[in-house]
């Protein structure tokens, strides 16, 4: 600094300020418990679900089989070239996030994000061993003692057990879960499995136990993207200044003196429950994950002091602004909640409250339309996709071969994809090439216009196929024709167009 004025030097780095969220109770907290139970259950149980696919495919309901390049999800089996289904689902997830965010703000962050769920879980553990907010603050300050050590050891051990279980569950999605578990325990699993568990254990322990809101604030890109999805009609957790301010510690005194006073009694209940460590009364903030725990805390207080709930609520910016205008004294430009409530403390009719019709806006409808269309398109594609296909590669060197009897032969590499876990007999024939006969490598029989090829379950069979035309049928140059593969049992057909080359 060169201006010569003594200023506090700016701190370049700042240590994390430890947050001690207090346990909240209320409807949103209950909802969060339920979401937490469901998401954790899905994560831990899914790899153990079984799904019978017959003897030629794994019986794990959800499996990402990287070694064999297959992805199984219940009745769906995806081959690598069908990865667009996965891509489509990711696009749907993205649009779905846009939709949810434009309607109810950062609901993903507040309820379902793994970072939120695991942080919540770690907080449960912390609270169990060290007590609620005040006890934890005190414990932090206390000098080391046997009791403190015991609590800390228990807490970190439990965290680590959860972390190991989290990392451990992850790898079950990539291999047969019961086998892998046995290998893991007996020390026979591949080192990659152990390394993955170790890495995920570390990240779970560090993110859930030590970094928590720092992940949201500094590492995660979602909050920034989601912030861009919000508009004036999105529901966000809002402190309603128009009925809360001016806040006062002594409502009775204020009432007696006739001073303007709002509903907020400045009890700090909303601040102490906040997992992001912020004061929602300062307005919308980057750190707020809209977990709505402050709503629960404040509603509780409002109940106790006999005021309507909703001082902190899910509100839209439009409603908030309109209500603010109503509650602002035009002369002094200060807030006076008496402008919006009658003598009994009831709010005047002009005050805007939540109205579900706010969900139906062009933007949300558009997102919904795109999301549904994508879903239907994917479902349609899924129902129409081929489970038996062929692909053909025509020999380029030599393009044709003249045989002793003057006939011309072309070579093709034919791949037959049997994408179901059952053995098939594929009837392979040529169409559009007069008098053509073929011989197929590995298939016995005299040259004929077709061949019957067994293909193993869930396999690609590669064949060398020679197609031969006798001199009287040969047309000079290129003749287009098709290979047709038919499963005569299921009547599935796939056709592949290619050409037959002869001398010009």
């Amino acid at each position, binding site marked *: *600094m*060169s*201006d010569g004025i003594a200023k506090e030097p*700016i*701190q*370049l*780095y*700042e*240590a*994390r300020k430890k947050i001690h969220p207090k346990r909240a109770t209320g409807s949103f907290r209950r909802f969060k418990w339920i979401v937490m139970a469901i998401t954790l259950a899905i994560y831990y149980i899914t790899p153990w679900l079984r799904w019978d696919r017959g003897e030629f495919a794994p019986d794990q309901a959800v499996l990402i089989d990287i070694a064999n390049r297959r992805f199984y999800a219940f009745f769906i089996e995806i081959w690598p070239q069908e990865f667009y289904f996965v891509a489509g689902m990711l696009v749907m997830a993205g649009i779905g996030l846009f939709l949810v965010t434009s309607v109810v703000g950062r609901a993903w962050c507040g309820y379902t994000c793994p970072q939120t769920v695991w942080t919540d879980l770690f907080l449960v553990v912390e609270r169990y061993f060290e007590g609620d907010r005040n006890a934890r603050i005190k414990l932090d300050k206390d000098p080391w003692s046997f009791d403190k050590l015991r609590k800390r050891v228990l807490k970190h051990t439990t965290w680590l057990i959860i972390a190991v279980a989290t990392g451990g569950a992850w790898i079950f999605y990539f291999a047969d879960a019961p086998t892998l578990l046995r290998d893991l325990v007996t020390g026979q699993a591949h080192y990659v499995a152990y390394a993955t568990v170790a890495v995920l254990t570390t990240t779970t322990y560090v993110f859930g136990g030590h*970094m928590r809101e*720092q992940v949201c*604030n*500094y590492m995660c890109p979602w909050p920034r993207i989601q912030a861009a999805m919000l508009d004036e009609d999105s529901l966000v957790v809002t402190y309603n200044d128009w009925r809360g301010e001016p806040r006062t510690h002594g409502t009775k005194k204020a009432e007696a003196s006739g001073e303007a006073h709002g509903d907020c009694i400045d009890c700090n209940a909303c601040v102490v429950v906040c997992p992001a460590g912020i004061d929602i009364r300062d307005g919308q903030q980057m750190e707020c994950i809209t977990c709505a725990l402050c709503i629960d805390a404040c509603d509780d207080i409002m109940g106790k002091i006999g005021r309507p709930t909703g001082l902190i609520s899910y509100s839209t910016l439009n409603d908030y602004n309109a209500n603010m205008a109503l509650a602002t004294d035009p002369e002094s430009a200060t807030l006076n909640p008496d402008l919006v409530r009658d003598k009994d403390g009831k709010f005047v009719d002009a005050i805007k409250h939540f109205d579900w019709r706010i969900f139906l806006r062009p933007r949300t409808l558009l997102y919904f339309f795109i999301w549904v269309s994508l879903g239907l398109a994917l479902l349609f594609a899924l129902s129409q996709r081929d489970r038996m296909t062929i692909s053909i590669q025509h*020999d*380029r*060197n*030599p393009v044709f*071969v*003249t*045989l*002793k*009897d*003057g006939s011309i*032969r072309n*070579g093709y590499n034919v791949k037959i994809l049997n994408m179901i876990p059952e053995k098939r007999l594929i009837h392979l024939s040529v169409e559009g090439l007069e008098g053509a006969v073929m011989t197929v*490598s590995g298939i016995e029989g005299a040259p004929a216009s077709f061949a019957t090829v067994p293909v193993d379950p869930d396999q690609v069979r590669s064949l*060398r196929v*020679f197609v031969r035309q006798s*001199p009287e049928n040969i047309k000079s140059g290129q003749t287009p024709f098709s290979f047709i593969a038919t499963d005569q049992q299921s009547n599935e057909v796939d056709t592949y167009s290619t050409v037959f080359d002869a001398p010009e």
Partner: protein
Amino acid sequence: MSENNETDDITGVETTGHEWDGIKELNNPLPRSWLWGLYGTIVFSIGYVIAYPALPLINSSTAGLLGWSSRQNVANDIAALEQGRESLGQDLVATDLNKISGNPDLMQFALAGGNSAFKVYCSQCHGAGAAGGGIYPNLVDDDWIWGGTVDDIYLTLKHGIRYEADEDTRYSQMPNFGADGILERDAIKDAAWYVRSISGQEADLEAAERGAIVYQDNCAACHGDSGEGMHDLGAPALNDAIWLYGGSHEEIVAQISKPKQGVMPAWGDRLSEATIRQLSLYVHRLGGGEK
């Protein structure tokens, strides 16, 4: 740091003085964990430099304590691969050549090895697609001068054709019917018309009739009564559509007068038994192999 720092009213945080379109940058401190992250990477890089090859020297680089080397890794991988192949290679040599195709693993090994060996040793003359060209026979068609069974191909590969350095090479010599004055010029022309006629090509039938007699007296001993050729003597079939040295009247006349004779080197002393077997099976599978 800029001098005109001001304080942002809403957040109470000082700005950096940078402004873009009216948006000012707050000078919030970085989280300290980032700084730790930076120190962490520095510590890691020091460890890395010590453990792995890192610092460039003039002709090489520092070796690193772990002795890791990508070159050595490749060498190890190749050695491991060769070790794995050894048993297959032994099986290949020990198994009857005609029975190998009954063993899918061994056959796959043979074809893959044959494919790469062909690219290295054979494609220069016979072409990458094995379709021959010029004076080099096509190996994908069904016409074989010296026979097209696996055993025939094996023999040709092992000892070559007209390859004098190999005692067991197969040898035949077509006489210079014209150059050595064995046949009159007209007789040669007639014989050529006859050859065209038996291979189903346009011919001067009158001349061909005369040529038939010339053929029976001079050619049939090797090329067969009906021109079907004879593998043991390397006498090509003359009644088919395939002509190594050309099937026009002039080309046939030239070949009778002063024949071109191909030479194929013997590979027995240059390639391993396993490789020759691989090549035999591979070539046999190209499209024209005989039973």
